[in-house]
C-alpha cells in the first residue's frame, strides 16, 4: 500500500489465489450450508419491520391518503421523497453492472450481482409510493397504463408523471432481465452440485439447462454487451425523467435545467452509499473478505467522492442561478431553503452530502471500514434530506402567503417508510442466502491466468 507502484503490478481483485473450484465452493457454500440462527433472527426482525409497514399501507388504502400529513401547499410530502430516494438507490446497481462493464472495469465482478439485486428491490420499494399517492389505487390502472377500456380513455402522454410510469417500469423490467441473464450460468453451477432435491429442481428450472457451451457463450456475451449498452442510457434516462416530474412544472426551485444531471449524480451517489452499507455487512457476515477486497471498497469510495462533489456543485449552482436570474420568487425559495423553516433539513443535507465525503481524499480513510460505514450511512441520510428539501421547501411557502404552511409527516408515513426498509432488507437477506451472491462465472473469468494469452498469434 505504499505510494508509487507501476501500472503492471495492480492489486489483485481476488485475494488468497483460489482455484476455479475454490470459487464455486466458496460462493455456493453460502447457499449449501443450512441457514444459521443468526440468519433467521435477522429475517424475523426485518420481516416484522416490513409487516408493520404493510399494515400501514393497508390502512392508507382503506382510509385514503388523508391519514398522511400532506396538506394543501405540501401535497407531495414523504411519499414522493421516498420514491425518489429509493429509485436513486437503485441506480448504483445499474451503474456497476452496465457502465463499469462497458468501461471494462473488472473490479465490478465481485459486487455487481448484489448491486443489481439491490436495484431490483429498491425499485420495488420505490414503486409502492406513487401508487399509494394516487389515492384510489384500484382505479389507478387506467390513469397509469394505456390499455383499451370501456371508457375509451387513454393516459395523458403529455404529463411527466406518465413518462415516469414508463421509465420506472422499463427500468425494473430491464434490470430484472439483466440480472437473470447474469444468473443463468451460476444457476447451472448450483444445479450440478447442490444435494438438496428442492434446490436442485429449482436451480434446474431457472438455469434453463445451461451447460456452458462455447457456442452458447458467444451469443450470451453479445447479449450481455447489448443489455449493458441499453442499461447505460436507461439509467441516465430514468432519473432524468424522475427529475422532469419537478423540472417540467413551474414551481420556483423545481423549474431548472440543472435537474436531470443533478438528479443522476445524486442517484449514483446515494446508490453507492447503499451498496457500501450492504456490502460491508455482507462481507463481514458471510466472510467474503477475499472477494470483496479493500480495493473494491476504495474504488467505490472514490466514486462517492466524485459524485458527492458533483452534487455539491449543483447545490451551489442552484443558488448562483437563482441570484443571477433576478427572479424574486426563485431567490426567495433558495433563501428560504437555507435560512427558513426547513434550514435544519437543508444544513443536514449539506453536511452529509458535501462535507462527509471529503474524508475520502485520504487513502487511510478510504480503506478504513468503520469510517466508510459511518460515511455511507450519513450519505444515505443526506440524500434522503436532499429530496425532502427539494419537495418541502418549494411547496410549503408558495405564491400566496395566506396559504403557507409547515409540513411534517404523520405516523403512517413514517411507518410505511420504515416498512419499505424492512421489505428491502428481507428481500436482500433472502437473496444473499439462496441466490449466488457473487457472479461465479464472471469472477472466474477475471482470475489470473483465466484467459488465454494471445501473444503466440
Amino acid at each position, binding site marked *: 500500500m505504499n505510494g508509487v507502484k507501476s501500472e503492471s503490478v495492480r492489486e489483485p481483485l481476488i485475494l488468497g489465489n483460489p*482455484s*476455479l*473450484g*475454490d470459487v*464455486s*465452493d466458496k460462493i455456493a457454500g453460502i447457499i449449501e450450508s443450512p441457514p444459521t440462527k443468526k440468519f433467521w433472527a435477522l429475517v424475523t426482525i426485518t420481516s416484522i419491520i416490513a409487516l408493520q409497514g404493510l399494515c400501514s399501507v393497508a390502512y392508507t388504502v382503506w382510509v385514503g391518503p388523508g391519514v398522511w400529513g400532506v396538506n394543501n401547499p405540501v401535497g407531495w410530502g414523504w411519499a414522493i421523497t421516498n420514491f425518489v430516494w429509493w429509485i436513486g438507490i437503485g441506480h448504483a446497481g445499474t451503474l456497476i453492472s452496465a457502465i463499469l462493464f462497458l468501461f471494462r472495469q473488472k473490479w465490478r465482478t465481485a459486487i455487481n450481482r448484489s448491486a443489481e439485486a439491490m436495484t431490483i428491490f429498491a425499485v420495488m420499494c420505490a414503486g409502492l409510493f406513487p401508487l399509494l399517492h394516487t389515492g384510489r389505487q384500484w382505479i389507478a390502472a387506467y390513469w397509469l397504463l*394505456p390499455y383499451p377500456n370501456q371508457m*375509451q380513455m387513454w*393516459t*395523458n*402522454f*403529455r404529463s*411527466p408523471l*406518465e*413518462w415516469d410510469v*414508463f*421509465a420506472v417500469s*422499463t427500468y425494473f*423490467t*430491464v434490470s430484472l*432481465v439483466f440480472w437473470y*441473464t447474469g444468473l*443463468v*450460468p451460476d444457476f*447451472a*453451477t448450483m*444445479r*450440478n*452440485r447442490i444435494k438438496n432435491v428442492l434446490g436442485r429442481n429449482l436451480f434446474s428450472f431457472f438455469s*434453463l*439447462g*445451461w*451447460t*456452458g*457451451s*462455447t*457456442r*452458447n*457463450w*458467444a*451469443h*450470451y*456475451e*453479445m*447479449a450481455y454487451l*447489448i*443489455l449493458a449498452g*441499453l442499461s447505460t*442510457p*436507461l439509467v441516465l*434516462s430514468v432519473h432524468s425523467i424522475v427529475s*422532469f416530474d419537478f423540472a417540467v412544472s413551474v414551481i420556483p426551485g423545481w423549474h431548472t435545467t440543472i435537474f436531470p444531471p443533478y438528479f443522476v449524480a445524486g442517484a449514483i451517489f446515494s446508490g453507492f452509499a447503499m451498496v457500501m452499507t450492504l456490502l460491508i455487512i455482507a462481507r463481514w457476515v458471510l466472510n467474503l473478505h477475499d472477494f470483496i477486497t479493500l480495493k473494491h471498497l476504495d474504488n467505490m469510495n472514490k466514486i462517492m467522492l466524485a459524485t458527492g462533489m458533483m452534487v455539491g456543485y449543483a447545490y451551489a449552482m442552484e443558488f448562483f442561478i437563482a441570484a443571477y436570474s433576478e427572479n424574486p420568487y426563485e431567490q426567495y425559495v433558495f433563501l428560504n431553503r437555507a435560512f427558513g423553516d426547513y434550514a435544519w433539513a437543508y444544513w443536514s443535507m449539506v453536511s452529509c452530502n458535501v462535507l462527509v465525503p471529503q474524508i475520502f481524499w485520504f487513502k487511510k480513510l478510504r480503506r478504513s471500514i468503520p469510517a466508510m460505514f459511518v460515511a455511507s450511512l450519513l450519505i444515505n441520510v443526506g440524500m434522503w434530506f436532499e429530496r425532502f428539501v427539494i419537495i418541502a421547501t418549494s411547496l410549503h411557502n408558495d405564491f400566496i402567503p395566506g396559504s403557507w404552511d409547515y409540513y411534517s409527516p404523520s405516523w403512517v408515513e413514517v411507518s410505511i417508510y420504515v416498512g419499505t426498509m424492512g421489505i428491502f432488507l428481507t428481500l436482500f437477506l433472502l437473496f444473499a442466502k439462496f441466490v449466488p451472491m457473487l457472479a461465479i*462465472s464472471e469472477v*472466474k*473469468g477475471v482470475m489470473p*491466468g*483465466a*484467459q*488465454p494469452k*494471445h501473444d503466440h498469434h
Partner: protein
Amino acid sequence: MEEQTLTQPVKSESAETEASAHMEQPDARATSDPLAVMGDFVDPNEVTDAARAIHAAGYTDFDIYTPYPVHGLEKAMGMKKTILPFFSLGGALFGLGNAIFLQWWTGTLHYPLNIGGKPFFSPWFGMPVMFELTVLLCALTTAVVMFGLLCKLPQWHNPFQKDAGFRRAVDDTFVVVIEAKDQRFTVDSATNLLEKLGASNVRLVNV
C-alpha cells in the same frame, strides 16, 4: 471446512460410479451406441489450441464447455459472429414504432383531449415514452432470442449430463465434446485426436 479434492482437475476412473450415484439409475434401455467422445482441459491456452486443431481437422459437431467465457475460443472453433444484434435492432425498432403509434393514435385519432392547449401529438413530449419502449422491447427481444432461439434453451434434458466429468464443465474444467452425429466421427479417430491434443480423461460416452 477442509478443502475438498473437488478443486483438482478430473482424473477419476470413478467417473461412471459417481455418475450413477449422483443421477438416477442407469437407463435399462441404454445401448452401446456412441453419443460423444469427451476430454478435459484445465489450461485456457491448451484448450484454445485444441479448438483450433479440431476445427482444422474438419469436425463441425463439436463443442467446448467452459465454466466462464474464454475469450477467443469461439473464433478458434471457427464460429461465425453472432447474428443477435440484428434481432436486437429489430426489437428496438418495433418498440419505437409502437411508442410512436400508441401516442399518436390515442392522442389524435381515438380520443383527442385538449389539455392546457398542448398539441395532441408531438415528438417532443413523446420522446421519453419512445425511448423507454425502444429500450424495453430491445432488451426483451435480446434476452428471449439469445436464450430461446440461438442457445435453444430451455433444454430440460441433456444426455451429456450423465457424465460426471461433463457436469464439472460449469465448475472448473474445460470439457471438449466431439459428438457422434458428426459425419467424420469414429470413436477411434476422435479419441486419438483428443489424446494427441493433450486432453486428460478422454472417454467415450454412450447413448
